[in-house]
């Protein structure tokens, strides 16, 4: 079998230009496929994995952008008094763009000393906690954000009209947290000119999952007649809703992925059909030498599979490297989505390309074995 695989690989070298062009075509398709798969996987991670099951998000009613969700900070004390509430963290969020964008800069303002409670999973990988605690304008910057902007501890940078000092670089298991900068709430309130006492949202931890619904209802009921009514949802639902536009946009990219798959199948099928047509006599010679139909099929399918796999390796490899290098952040209505490719996604694309190559070669392979030997030798 290995010897037949080697023979198939050598046969591909006979028409180098055709092979190179086919591999390039497959690579383009698999680049697109890998990019689409990465988008889908990034969205899945952001809306499912990161959502804690005992956290509620309190937002301003009928507002979906952090810029327009303004709630009084004193609501925190009122919320804390509701039965079932374990903890309340007021958060201020500033973004450079509330619409759909590929370069979102997000500042999260968290009360001094509460960062560890808000995001216990983050780890400082560069710089230290000292500067963060000491300086009012200190920021802990997500590692992807820092990489994209070329930031190191000790640097200063301006964004969203705010100038901050990079106290450290952080890493989080949640990709979107690697694309934001954490600052102190009071500093962000002053710097963003919304003033002290105004926050974007409250993150509320309840005592148990069963408390989510009654606590959410109680919060909204409490502020229903207030000047700034609230809308409280579990964090998972909040993510899903704010990411609605992204889901729609990314849902559309499924069609691009399907188009890429069809393009790959068509390209390989065309290349293998041409190859089978140009080697009618040669296949007949192999069958005269005693090659059974399954060996001829194996040869043709191997050539298709090899073309697919080579294209997959190039396309998925390039897409993976490109997306890693660019570390795009997609944003919509303040929700950030880090588009980070996983090795598993690239491997999936390569295996998919291999299978597509084999599937595309089935018909040409059947054509190759069905032609009568005598007729083929005369052709």
């Amino acid at each position, binding site marked *: 079998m290995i010897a037949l695989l080697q023979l198939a690989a*050598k046969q591909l*070298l*006979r028409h180098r230009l055709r092979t190179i062009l086919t591999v390039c075509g497959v690579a383009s398709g698999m680049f697109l496929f890998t990019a689409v798969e990465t988008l889908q996987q990034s969205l899945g991670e952001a809306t499912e994995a990161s959502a804690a099951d005992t956290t509620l998000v309190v937002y301003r009613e009928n507002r979906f952008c952090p810029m327009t969700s303004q709630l009084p900070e004193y609501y925190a004390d009122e919320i804390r008094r509701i039965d079932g509430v374990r903890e309340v963290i007021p958060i201020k969020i500033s973004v450079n763009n509330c619409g759909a964008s590929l370069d979102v800069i997000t500042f999260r303002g968290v009360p001094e000393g509460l960062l560890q409670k808000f995001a216990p999973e983050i780890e400082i990988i560069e710089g230290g906690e000292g500067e963060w605690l000491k300086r009012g304008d200190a920021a802990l910057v997500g590692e992807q954000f820092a990489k994209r902007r070329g930031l190191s501890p000790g640097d200063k940078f301006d964004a969203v009209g705010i100038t901050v000092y990079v106290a450290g670089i952080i890493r989080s298991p949640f990709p979107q947290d690697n694309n934001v900068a954490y600052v102190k709430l009071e500093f962000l309130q002053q710097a963003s000119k919304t003033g002290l006492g105004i926050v974007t949202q409250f993150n509320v931890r309840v005592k148990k999952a069963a408390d989510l619904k009654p606590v959410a209802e109680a919060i909204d009921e409490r502020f229903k007649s207030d000047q700034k009514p609230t809308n409280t949802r579990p964090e998972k639902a909040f993510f899903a809703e704010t990411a609605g536009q992204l889901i729609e946009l990314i849902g559309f990219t499924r069609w691009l992925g399907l188009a890429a798959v069809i393009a790959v199948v068509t390209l390989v099928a065309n290349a293998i059909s041409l190859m089978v047509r140009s080697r009618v006599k*040669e296949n007949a010679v192999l069958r005269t030498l005693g090659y*059974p*139909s399954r*060996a001829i099929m194996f040869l043709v399918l191997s050539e298709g599979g090899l073309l697919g796999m080579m294209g997959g390796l190039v396309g998925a490899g390039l897409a993976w490297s490109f997306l890693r290098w660019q570390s795009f952040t997609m944003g919509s209505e303040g929700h950030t989505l880090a588009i980070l490719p996983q090795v598993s996604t690239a491997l999936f694309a390569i295996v998919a390309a291999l299978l597509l190559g084999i599937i595309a070669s089935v018909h040409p392979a059947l054509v190759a074995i069905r032609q009568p030997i005598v007729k083929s*030798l005369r052709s």
Partner: protein
Amino acid sequence: MISCKSISKSYRKGPNLVTPLEDLNLEVARGEFLALMGPSGSGKTTLLNLISGIDSPTAGSLKIDGEDIASFSRKELTHWRARKVGYIFQLYHLIPVLTALENVELPLLITSLTRAERKEKAEAALKIVGLEDRSHHTPNELSGGQEQRVAIARALVSDPALLVADEPTGDLDRESASKILDLLKSLSSEHGKTIVMVTHDARAAAAADRTLHLEKGQLLENEPSYSNS
């Protein structure tokens, strides 16, 4: 070795039934070198195809080495060809991206032999045809005569008892043709191979132990007077 009894071959071509061979009887002894001559369309290549098992007769019995291959299924015929027959084509049909050694190795790729065993057998076959020093050359680095010798080595490599050759010298100059015929003669006389060769060339036929003439699908008792091409 070969026993054809009342074999016929016919096929449909449009509305007509074509019968290139009809009620043909032939006996070939083991180790014999037989030449088949005849004008185009006389049925000699059809007979060669039947003897080599790449086609089946529509009637009659065709026994080779005691096996009635006329009754074989397609799968059985494929298996039989791999073990029992070596085919030599007029235009060699070597694979251009493979070296002489790799081309000779081709029939062995579908066997259970190890890589080393395959190499050893292919080298031995190349030695028989006198091309052991050209084993790493690709077909485009070889002359026509050398290519045909590689093709003969490929036919020999599985050590079949029967070799069939379809105008093996038809595409070669006189000197190369003569060397190929000498090689075929020695394969028959020294290695005991039974050879059936189709040719248009009387000089090539003269190298065989016996020459039979075919015309309109029938073997002729006497040698006809058509000219050689």
